[in-house]
């Protein structure tokens, strides 16, 4: 096989950004895996595919969709799903994930991950869409927990009950974004520790870490923005450490999508995650749940 192994190791990876293509190919850094946004590799050809092919020959790859709009009431975009499948087949990624969010309405694409209410109607719609994705792409997907700024009065279940029910009905796995957990907990004034301790970690195939920006809401209360524009916050590292005590080492991605830093700064974030992973390499500490 021309590609390196498909499996994603329980190590730290980073989101692949075009400014780093040359650093990676010329420097050959010791990174567990790279993750791509599927939409950046849906063009017919050119430099993105040439660089990604060369990187995929050397590193495991994870495929992360950002535009499928699984939480839309409307049908999935069949053309987009076909493009996603083509990227999956071309690059043979070890993991494949998308978001619990919507981004498309009628013919408009909003380029943001918009929140869904947690009720029976949305649950049915999301599960239908995940079934369609898994059948079309021909593999299990991981669904990522969202970061949100608002809630919906019509929600009738908790986010965790919603995710648990999606997993039960569709057989999909979960991508646990610890930065999203922290953002949502601060924004909704709930406990991130309680959320993490109750998360169905047995279904988690990957962890995301990223940076957020602080703001305040109408009433002057803290509002965190999921900006992916800076280093991982200390509070998020703390939650990650707490999570690893339950799960043991899992593939962990550093997301840094805006104000992308020099390669060395991004690599240092991955190294910090690797150190934490190494300290939990012996597996979950059952004392924590006993």
């Amino acid at each position: 096989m021309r590609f390196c192994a498909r499996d994603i190791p329980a190590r730290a990876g980073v989101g692949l950004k075009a400014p780093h293509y040359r650093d990676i190919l010329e420097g050959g850094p010791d990174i567990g895996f790279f993750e791509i946004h599927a939409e950046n590799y849906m063009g017919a050809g050119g430099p993105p595919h040439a660089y990604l092919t060369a990187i995929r020959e050397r590193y495991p790859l994870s495929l992360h969709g950002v535009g499928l709009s699984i939480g839309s009431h409307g049908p999935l975009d069949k053309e987009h799903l076909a493009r996603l499948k083509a990227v999956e087949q071309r690059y043979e990624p070890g993991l494949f994930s998308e978001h619990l969010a919507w981004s498309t309405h009628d013919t408009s694409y909003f380029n943001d991950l918009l929140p869904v209410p947690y009720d029976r109607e949305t649950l049915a719609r999301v599960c239908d869409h995940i079934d369609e994705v898994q059948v079309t792409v021909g593999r299990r997907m991981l669904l990522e927990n969202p970061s949100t700024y608002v809630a919906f009065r019509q929600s009738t279940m908790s986010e965790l009950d919603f995710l648990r029910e999606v997993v039960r009905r569709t057989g999909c796995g979960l991508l646990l974004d610890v930065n999203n957990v922290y953002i949502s907990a601060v924004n909704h004034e709930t406990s991130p520790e309680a959320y993490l301790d109750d998360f169905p970690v047995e279904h988690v195939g990957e962890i995301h870490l990223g940076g957020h920006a602080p703001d305040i809401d109408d009433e002057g209360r803290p509002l965190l923005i999921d900006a992916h524009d800076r280093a991982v916050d200390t509070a998020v590292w703390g939650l990650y450490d707490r999570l690893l005590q339950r799960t043991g080492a899992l593939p962990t991605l550093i997301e840094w999508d805006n104000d992308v830093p020099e390669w060395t700064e991004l690599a240092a974030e991955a190294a910090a995650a690797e150190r934490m992973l190494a300290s939990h390499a012996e597996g979950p500490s059952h004392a924590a749940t006993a």
Partner: protein
Amino acid sequence: MPRLPDLQAEFSAALTQPDAAVPDGVTAPSGGRANKRFAVYRNNVTVSLTAALEDSFPAIAKLLGDEYFAALAREFIRRHQPSSPLLAEYGAEFGDFLDAFPPLAAYPYLGDVARLEHAWLSAYHAADAAPLDPARLSAIPETSLGEVRFTPHPALRILASRWPILTLFKANRTGEEGQPPDLSSGGESVLVTRPSLNVTLSRLSPGASDFLEALCGGDTLGGAAALAIEKTAEFDLGTALQTALAAGAFSDIRTPG
């Protein structure tokens, strides 16, 4: 309680209208006003699409300055939302929008510069193909040359302008200070190609854009040359063909029989 389709319709409408009320049932944890919280989504849409346009149209951004570009992008986004998550395709109408935007009527070259930037991006993402080896054309007997037809390379784009768009493009995408445009140098026609990984922009000689458009439309070499001479007396077939072959404009040739 709104059902999901109504909620998403209302949410979508409020995202793109700055003065719209926050949709019913969207709440803050206190149960209080969620105006600023909802505005985060509204802002994300505008800021992320503005960034996408700035990535795709850096010369326009440099010519106009960041502040003006951001305001202009907001107007464009309001009228042309992307219809696909493939943001490299977003902005196909940006050139036409600039042409028709009244406050920019004194800068009539902007539309063509934007079209050149869009062509550059579209060539960047075009399918890969090996360019035609010019030796294959040389091997054809002179008596049959007029009957040769060319297959355009997937990355080939042609832009003819009344304005010096190649000069403006290069001056404003080099990372140096934006330079005041010198419009006195006259119009430029540009051949956009990507023979391997790098997008190449070549200035075309007079009449060459008509000639290459005709070849791409399926005309024979003889037919396309005749058409170009008819439109432009000083058309030079040798120069036009050499420029196109050197730039990798074609992927194949066909001869009759």
